[in-house]
């Protein structure tokens, strides 16, 4: 029974996905069916299952470990999926997205993310990576008639499979080193040869790093991010930017801080450079953007840099900081993309900066919520982003990475500049023309409200989540 218990969250979401698929298959043409509701039920069930599995350390089939770490990430990913479905239910018809396939793919992608966070075997991580990615490739191009969308989808697919091939090659070399694809076997093998690691180990580590760096969109493997985020439907972008990143960072953490732990001194140096470059490039290029989706894409690249800083400061504080940052970033980012999705009309749907002009006068609540999300991403108290950034920088300073911390805080200040651009457009432009915002219903409003409440809650009373994050770390590392 332990086997099934460990995979219970994933199982529930898979069942929900299959139910969605069937519902879509049996749906008569033009019949309205609350397919999204099935997804919501599945995700809520998964969160409940994760809660029940807490502190149990169930192991499934030898390769899936439902320890607190993977349960934490599972819940974060499920919450992201929930918000995405809630926001999508408003815009799916308006944007002409085939709803059945859309929800099915979203749910399957969530399964892939959950699996990626819980897997302790490289093969399973690879398969989970592919499940998650393939679903997201399709989601990116799901508006088949949109030229930008299909282009984005293809570019994402191209570079994604490219990096999967690198990842696979890296797994092959890890297999060579340890004779098994399991992470603990790899860890033992590397520890034994830690004093003189052969070329295989370096190859394995480098190739795996390339694969992960792509998925996390670290520089210089970030080139796909702006195009993919800009071309995809906005709710999909919100899903991608938070969920895929969460799963990839979780797997990255697990692989590099348990398997490659003995070689930490060597890869820390390289990763520090990557992190600093990522922070700087994400912020500096983001400042030049005029399309909000592209701007937030670069902002998510910068946030990946901060997450990497937490991985570099590999102490217990650093790891729990990464988890807390994932949670707070997810809530704020998915909320921001939700707002962008809501203000798009059929004609005006590319997410330009000028779309936000005077939003405060047309829909004040929406503008306020967007400001809350953007300020949280910028790291202002009393929002969650401030505590998250402080926690990560505290972890870095604690381990002696002063340059990293200073680069991090300075790029935070620069990034505020592009978040403020949107705020200025919303609040301070004197253009009096009323912005036309299509109506959206109670589900979307509820989603935005929950995201905003979560942002404030994590910013003012972060203790509970920080405790949970710390408990998550202690079970595996």
């Amino acid at each position, binding site marked *: 029974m332990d086997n099934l218990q460990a995979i219970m969250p994933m199982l529930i979401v898979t069942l929900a996905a299959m139910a969605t698929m069937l519902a879509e298959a049996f749906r008569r043409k033009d019949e309205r069916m609350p397919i999204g509701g099935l997804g919501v039920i599945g995700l809520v069930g998964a969160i409940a299952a994760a809660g029940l599995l807490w502190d149990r350390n169930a192991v499934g089939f030898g390769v899936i470990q439902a320890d607190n770490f993977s349960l934490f990430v599972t819940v974060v990913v499920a919450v992201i999926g929930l918000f995405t479905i809630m926001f999508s239910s408003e815009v799916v018809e308006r944007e002409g997205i085939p709803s059945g396939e859309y929800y099915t793919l979203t749910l399957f992608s969530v399964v892939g993310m959950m699996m990626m966070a819980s897997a302790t075997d490289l093969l399973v991580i690879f398969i989970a990576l592919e499940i998650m990615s393939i679903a997201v490739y399709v989601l990116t191009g799901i508006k088949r008639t949109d030229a930008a969308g299909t282009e984005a989808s293809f570019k994402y697919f191209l570079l994604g499979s490219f990096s999967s091939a690198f990842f696979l090659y890296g797994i092959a070399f890890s297999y060579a080193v340890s004779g098994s694809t399991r992470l603990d076997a790899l860890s033992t093998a590397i520890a034994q040869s830690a004093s003189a690691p052969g070329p295989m180990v370096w190859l394995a580590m480098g190739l795996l790093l390339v694969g992960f760096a792509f998925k996390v969109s670290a520089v210089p493997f970030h080139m796909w991010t702006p195009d993919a985020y800009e071309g995809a439907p906005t709710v999909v972008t919100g899903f991608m930017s938070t969920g895929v990143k969460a799963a990839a960072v979780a797997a990255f953490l697990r692989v590099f801080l348990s398997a490659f732990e003995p070689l930490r001194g060597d890869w820390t140096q390289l990763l520090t450079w990557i992190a600093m470059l990522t922070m700087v490039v994400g912020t500096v290029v983001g400042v030049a953007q005029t399309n909000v989706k592209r701007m937030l894409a670069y902002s998510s690249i910068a946030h990946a840099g901060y997450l990497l800083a937490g991985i570099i400061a590999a102490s217990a504080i650093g790891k729990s900081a990464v988890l807390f940052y994932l949670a707070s970033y997810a809530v704020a980012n998915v909320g921001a993309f939700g707002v962008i999705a809501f203000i798009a009309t059929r004609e005006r749907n590319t997410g330009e900066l000028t779309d936000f002009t005077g939003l405060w006068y047309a829909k004040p609540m929406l503008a306020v919520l967007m400001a809350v999300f953007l300020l949280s991403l910028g790291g202002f108290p009393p929002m969650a982003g401030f505590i998250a950034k402080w926690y990560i920088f505290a972890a870095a300073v604690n381990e002696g990475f002063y340059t990293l*911390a200073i680069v991090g*805080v300075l790029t935070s200040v620069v990034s505020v500049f592009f978040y403020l651009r949107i705020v200025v457009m919303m609040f301070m432009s004197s253009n009096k023309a009323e912005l036309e915002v299509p109506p959206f219903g109670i589900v979307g409003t509820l989603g935005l409200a929950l995201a905003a409440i979560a942002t404030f809650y994590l910013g003012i009373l972060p*203790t509970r989540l920080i405790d949970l994050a710390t408990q998550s770390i202690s079970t595996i590392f």
Partner: protein
Amino acid sequence: MALLSFSIFLPTLGALLLALIPNRDGSRDGLIRQLALGISLVAFALTLALWAGFDVNGAEFQFVERTMWIDVFNVEYYIGIDGVSLMLIVLTGFLTPISLLASWGSVTKKVKEFSIFMLVLETAMIGVFSALDVFLFYVFWDAVLIPMYFLIGVWGYDRRIYASIKFLLFTMAGSVLMLVAIILLAVLHQQQTGSYSFDLLELYALQIPAGTANLCFLAFALAFSIKVPLFPLHTWLPDAHVEAPTAGSVILAGVMLKMGTYGLMRFAFPLFPEAATAWAPFIATLAVIGIVYGALVAMVQPDMKKLVAYSSVSHLGFVVLGLCALTVNGVQGAAYQMLNHGISTGGLFLIVGMLSDRRHTRLIAEFGGLKSVMPKLVAAFLIITLSSIAMPGLNGFVGEFLILMGSWRSEVLLPRFTVVAASGVILSAVYMLWMFQRVNYGEVTNPKNETLPDLSVREWCVLAPVVALAVVMGVFPNIFLQPMAPAVERMVQRMERRPAITQVIPQAEAPVAGTQAR
């Protein structure tokens, strides 16, 4: 009873109450204005209650409240006040309702949101002055930025967006380096004692190696110097002041700039005494340059508001000079001048705001001969101007005199600092009186000025307390100096690492309380 927490958060609770009132079409503007004023007056009453309950002879922090907030790093919700922070909190409580009342005439759109931002700003400012946990201080410090940014950016004048972003980015850039230094202090504490701590008093006791102390001091000093503002980091100030709405300018000049000097006094100097003493002459040099530079630039300004903005740079140079003198007189003068500047410059911005409300211009050339048109306004204007230039009998004199005396006898600063600073006093008289004369005396040159209304009842209620305080603070300074004396003593002792004395200077002595300590 958690009076201090209540004082901090009451304005925000009031703001939440205001947020619930629907006012999309502006029909309830009057109700909201009155409610906001009421809430700020209650907050002011609470600060006065704090003063009433404050033991002026006590050397320790009072009204202390302390609970664990984030236990991973031992971050606590730890607040308390001593004499200096008490006075600054009362100043905040005093100026907020005055600013709100002053904006009844000038802020007409989105009145509800304006009031909400002002009240939230008040919470953040009182929080800054009460925080004894360094992380909590930083949270409140950053929390001040957002409401002020919106106040300038939405309700300001023509170049408000540029000014508000400049203000925000400048201030934030300085403070993030301070954040790294704060984390470093907590980490050092952990290395030395085994547990993290952001408790200010424990950090005072930390043994910090000299190189690290130097860097940390510079990080802290940078953040505070940008806020003060210290020359040459002052360039955000003229733009922010000019483009801000009247209420924003009053709060910015009256309270927010004091956050910088308060930070120097409470955090930067006492946490790193050796580094501070080493850097004090350099900082004092910048302060003195600021005094003279601010005065000279103010002299040539055609815009009244910009003139007052540069006068702020000049006057706060005095405060920093007093702090850097590291003598009891100097620091006490600096603390008192913090209060004075709030009153006098706040008053100046209020008056300039009233003039610009009437004529929609702030250029000196557009006015002239106002004394015959609006005698009451000009009378108040005169008293505030004289207070600003430190005429004996008004509040500015006591402060500047103490500062000059303190820096003259300082062990850290050479006498030349005092000499140059004293010339700043003369220069400030020049530009202020010249401006005053051009605006108010002589013939009424511009026909549009002939029909301007004198002070309305509302405006009289705004100006009268300010003018009255300027006089009271000049004639009875000991009421305000006495609560601050133990805090000042403690800071100077800390700088010289002598054990703290707990006696207070009795009131029967000369009003300048510091003459005995050296």
